[in-house]
């Protein structure tokens, strides 16, 4: 990157140029994420659910941006919203949607499931309430402009040196390969 450029950026950020309206942005995005999350699990029609999930994903990507994680946000948009959700919509179109949206939507043990989820919620609430003091009041500012480089350094390492996560990264690529093979084998009628 152009040194003058990044210097300008950093100076702009360090000059106390706090991102504007942060609380508002946060509440809007969080509300959007949770509301469309509710829509995901309650819609009868799977396409509506998928659209709601896309909204959730984009809102979460916005939250990542607010957390100074632009690269993760970009990956979220490309992989999740652009890739995985298209796959979901593709499959929804292939399977018979008309019939299943007229049927019963929840399985018979739904009270049990709901109870378990409520128990989980209670656990979360108590954990958050108890551990509240652990968290600092102010969040620190990460260097946004070098975010990608830092992640790359962790994944691939510096010149001539393996990074902290290089091995895990290779394993992940293997995982993807296996997933590709698995998906092909499972969906093909005759191999």
């Amino acid at each position, binding site marked *: 990157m152009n040194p003058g450029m990044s210097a300008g950026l950093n100076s702009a950020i360090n000059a106390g140029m706090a991102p504007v309206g942060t609380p508002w942005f946060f509440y809007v995005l969080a509300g959007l994420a*949770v509301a469309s999350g509710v829509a995901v*699990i309650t819609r009868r029609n799977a396409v509506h659910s998928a659209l709601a999930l896309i909204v959730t994903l984009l809102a979460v990507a916005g939250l990542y941006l607010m*957390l100074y994680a632009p690269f993760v946000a970009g990956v979220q948009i490309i992989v999740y919203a652009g890739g995985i959700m298209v796959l979901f919509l593709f499959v929804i179109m292939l399977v018979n949607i008309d019939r299943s949206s007229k049927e019963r939507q929840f399985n018979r043990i739904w009270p049990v499931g709901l109870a378990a989820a409520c128990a989980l919620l209670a656990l979360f609430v108590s954990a958050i309430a108890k551990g509240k003091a652990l968290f600092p009041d102010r969040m620190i500012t990460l260097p946004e402009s070098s975010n990608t480089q830092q992640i790359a350094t962790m994944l691939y390492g510096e010149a001539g040196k393996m990074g902290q996560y290089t091995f895990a990264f290779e394993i992940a690529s293997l995982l993807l390969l296996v997933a590709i093979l698995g*998906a092909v084998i499972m969906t093909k009628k005759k191999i």
Partner: protein
Amino acid sequence: MAEITTLHYLVVAAALFVLGVIGVLTRRNVVIVLMSIELILNAVNLNLVAFSRMWGNLHGQVFAIFITVDAAAEAAVGLGILISFFRNKETINVDEIDLLKW
């Protein structure tokens, strides 16, 4: 308005996680169950990234990327299973998947 702290993000993540769990445990439609799993993974990712900012290093973000990779693999395989299942049984309801073979 108060400043947004890590805690705020954790609350959102917890809400998304619980919503995902509810979806997985109660819905019949496999597609929606898979989408609920994506919700859960996103909640986890949000947590990781929030912690990453709290501690001031990027390990959380790297983990979030790994989880995204995992989610892609899971979606591909899950939907592949779904299609081959649908082809054989002509249903996509979880509670009708009750045989180990067909």
